[in-house]
């Protein structure tokens, strides 16, 4: 629980003037010097993030870690915006760019330059696929979900910078066929198409959680234990999905779904009165209650079950898009994407009694997002150029207590270490070994990646499609990085491959080793590492290629490689 955030809010709101005065008084800290030099790139939203985040440091008497190195920053911004580490070429270009605005230039380039559109879209498609249907959604035989169909929709949406409100509207209200190439194809239907069993309980829960940051699933069966959410809340939300049906066409003589279509049909209501199409739910004491479609803020829509009178999902999509919850949930998730933690924990549980760590900043960014036509790239840019995103992950004595893993509210006074996502690791390995230059078709790449990913995912086989991943720093993951196919390929000595090219090039041995360090870790080797690398060369009896292979293997297995730091 963020127990102290009330105080913060109070402080920030009522004592801004006082806070500014305090600034002047804190002469003893280097922190003031940092304030003077921190760059907001002339972007008011960046300046506001910096101001509010610093206000909290001051409140808790902690100072920020020093800035990350240029190499580290360049690496993290590539990972977070386009889902992979930078190539040596990209890194060199950035490190050698003299201009003061080079950070802003790099962020702009990754977001807007044509040469990055495909990678940007791939990365955000991956994130949203996992969010909308999980890592195993659509991978089982006979599944009604077409994973590739959803990904096509997402890729198009991100490549053409679809505003977030439009995107959400389309996902909630979608109808059409799930499979690319089928008549009436609309890939967006794959979000809901697998969630309609058991009276669309999962569609209800996921729509609320993902787009509104509200976890209503517990109120399916009882009132919420910690706040005033009633059981009615779930069922009133649920009523919006009751016109929704799935029509399946099977491959002849099998249970394999060839194509499935998500449509709306007239709903007679459980009471059999289509003009008052109601649903029933059972209280814990066994009493039956009735529910009609009512949005979480209390807005009612028409009760008719006829689609021509009221298209319930379209009504819902309108209400979601028009509500402040949507922007707040989007900001919270985006912040967590870049900074490792959101303003609430969990990031998609923004119920009233789960008080955010930085309520005013959350509110501010949500309003800014809305007033910038819900352009996600604006939001990404503000966060990526902010001071908290630029800090080192090395903790100082002053901020060692800022550790959300210990249950504290995050203060963002240093960068929080985190594992790359499995997909980021995959793409990074491919980038680091320059395998991207000879890649197969997009579809084939995605299939290969998905096959690789499945080794970490186990599905629970329940009606909610829960899953767990062992891509979490476990022994399994270590084994994959020690010995897996991907690593074997990344460290292969094949003619024309990455290592072969470096080994047979005319760089000196020292520079070959430097190159490997830059490619994997965005830094040069330390003296010790150089020494050890030389020892390895000796041990391999002058076989440079083999020694480079061993060094490269060690680099790819290191924390420093697999963590976003």
């Amino acid at each position, binding site marked *: *629980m963020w127990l102290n955030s009330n105080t913060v809010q109070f402080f920030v709101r009522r004592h801004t003037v006082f806070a500014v005065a305090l600034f002047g008084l804190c002469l003893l800290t280097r922190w003031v010097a940092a304030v003077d030099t921190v760059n907001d790139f002339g972007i008011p939203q960046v300046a506001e993030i910096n101001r509010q985040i610093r206000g909290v440091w001051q409140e808790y008497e902690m100072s920020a870690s020093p800035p990350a190195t240029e190499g580290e920053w360049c690496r993290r911004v590539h990972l977070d915006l386009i889902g992979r580490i930078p190539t040596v070429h990209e890194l060199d270009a950035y490190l050698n760019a003299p201009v003061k605005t080079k950070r802003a230039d790099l962020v702009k380039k990754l977001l807007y330059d044509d040469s990055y559109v495909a990678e940007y879209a791939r990365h955000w498609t991956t994130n949203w696929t996992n969010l909308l249907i999980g890592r195993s959604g659509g991978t089982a035989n006979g599944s009604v979900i077409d994973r590739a169909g959803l990904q096509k929709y997402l890729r198009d949406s991100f490549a053409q910078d679809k505003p977030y409100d439009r995107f959400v509207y389309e996902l909630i209200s979608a109808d059409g066929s799930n499979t690319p190439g089928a008549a009436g194809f609309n890939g967006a239907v794959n979000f809901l198409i697998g969630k309609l069993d*058991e009276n669309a309980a999962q569609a209800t829960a996921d729509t609320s959680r993902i787009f509104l940051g509200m976890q209503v699933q*517990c109120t399916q*069966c009882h009132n919420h234990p910690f706040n005033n959410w009633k059981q009615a809340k779930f069922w009133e939300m649920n009523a919006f999905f009751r016109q929704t049906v799935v029509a399946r066409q099977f491959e002849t003589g099998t249970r394999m779904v060839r194509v499935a279509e998500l449509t709306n049909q007239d709903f007679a209501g459980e009471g059999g009165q289509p003009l008052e199409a109601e649903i029933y739910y059972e209280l814990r004491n066994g009493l039956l209650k009735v529910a009609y479609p009512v949005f979480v803020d209390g807005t009612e829509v028409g009760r008719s079950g006829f689609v021509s009178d009221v298209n319930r999902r379209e009504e819902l999509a309108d209400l979601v898009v028009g509500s402040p919850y949507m922007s707040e949930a989007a900001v919270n998730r985006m912040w967590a994407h870049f900074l490792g933690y959101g303003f609430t*924990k*969990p990031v998609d*549980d923004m119920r009233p009694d*789960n008080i955010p760590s930085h309520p005013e900043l959350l509110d501010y960014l949500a309003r800014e997002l809305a007033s910038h036509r819900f352009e996600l790239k604006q939001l990404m840019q503000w966060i990526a150029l902010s001071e908290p995103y630029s800090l080192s*992950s*090395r*903790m100082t004595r002053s901020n*060692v207590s800022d*550790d959300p*893993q*210990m*249950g504290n509210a995050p203060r963002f006074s240093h960068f*929080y*270490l985190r594992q790359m996502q499995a997909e980021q690791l995959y793409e990074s390995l491919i980038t680091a070994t320059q395998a991207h230059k000879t890649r197969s078709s997009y579809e084939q790449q995605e299939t290969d990646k998905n096959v690789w990913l499945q*080794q970490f995912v*186990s599905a*629970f*086989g*329940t009606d*909610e499609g*829960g*899953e*767990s*991943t*062992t891509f*979490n*720093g*476990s*022994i*399994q993951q*270590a*084994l994959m990085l*020690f*010995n*897996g196919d991907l690593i*074997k390929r990344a460290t292969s000595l094949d003619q024309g491959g990455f290592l072969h090219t470096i080994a047979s090039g005319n760089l000196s041995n020292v520079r070959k080793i430097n190159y490997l360090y830059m490619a994997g*870790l965005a830094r040069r080797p*330390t003296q*010790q*590492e150089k*020494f*050890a690398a030389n*020892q*390895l060369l*000796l*041990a391999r*009896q002058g076989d440079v290629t083999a020694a480079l292979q*061993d*060094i490269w*293997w*060690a680099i790819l*297995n*290191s*924390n*420093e490689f697999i*963590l976003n730091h």
Partner: protein
Amino acid sequence: MNSSSITDGLNTEYCVRRMEQPKTESQTSRKDGTMSQRIPDGMTRRHFMRHMAGASAWTIPALTLGRSLQLHAADLRQRHKSAILLWMSGGPSTIDIWDLKPGATTGGPFRPMSTSGDVQICEHMPQMAELMHHMTIVRSMSTSEADHGRGRYYMHTGYKPNPNIEHPSYGSVLSHELREGREELEIPPFVSVGGGSVGPGFLGMAWSPFTVTSGGRIRNLEMGIKDNRLADRMNMLYLIENNFDRQKRGSASQEHFKILEKTERLMTSPQMEAFKVRQEPQQVQDRYGASGFGRGCLLARRLVEAGVPFVEVDFGGWDNHSGIFPALETKLATLDQGMSALISDLEQRGLLGDTAIIWMGEFGRTPRINGNAGRDHWARSWSVAVGGGDLQRGIAIGETNQDGTRVESEPYTSQDLMASICKALGISLETTFTSNEGRPMKIANSGKVITELFG
């Protein structure tokens, strides 16, 4: 070669490593003299020695093999307590399996059957019926988590989900508490077969479930590269790790170090033979059944024999919201075969007295049969089955009312069950962990022992 000084320190290396920071450049040379190397800064001499030892071809595995063969295999078995959790993912209908209500409107079509114990169970479990003198049914489980994710977490940890803290699951807690005397064990102490289980929470990744398929297949176990390359590579890797770790970036990087060491050991361990279920005689495999669950049970037996303290076997597909009875007939046949083979094997091999068996899912299912001839989620009154260890055998504890909708006797919770299993394995209930937040947390969330489970 002097082996003992190298291998003895295995477990403590990573703790020591950070405290001793040799400043001098000590030289040590390998037997064949091809490589001399400075001890990297931040690595202890001992730690370094270990890698140097590993550097000479297959020294370490050979030593370990020798030692573990000498090592009182029989002793391991007798001394060591273990537990096997048969996890029925999806929420099994215990009213149709362990606590039948013939004649009640909620009762369903299955008939009760007498058994070798003082209990009746479902007619579709004939082989288990002959072994019920080894098992006990707790019919008065009453919990409040009827959502899969929450129920799964609660039944695995004894705690309700809380966004601010991750609690360790059964497997992590028990394997942690039963770690003593297993210094030679190179297989991870918590193996999850065919499923994902729940993680180690604040106990750390070293106690996380090692998941394998029911056939015992472990991906990526072989490096496929000859000679001393693994050891040389590890040296280089530990150097990079040390550099990074010394820069105060938090616990994630330290955890990784332990995992690397365990992984290296695992790759070179002959104990991994235990995973090769297919090496069992065909007739034994047949007894367990050709199902994934059957093979998982057989693997569990092999792992317990090898000294693994905790094995979880996942058996999914119990989420029968519709058409439950035909579905159950099929599932119960599979369950009956695998579970009965496991229990009779453990008994015959003299392992049952030291091995606690827990059969459970995240909750039970509604006594009321719904409109789709299914049963929905129900946590208020349901059953689990336990056996082995020091637990009472052959009885049923607690009772539900005539239609199974209410517990009539003292209700028991996940914590109570966990506390009882701890007691059955000789683990003190005064054991207290410290969470990440520094909060003391009692084992089994201070659950009360179910007294009837002990004579």
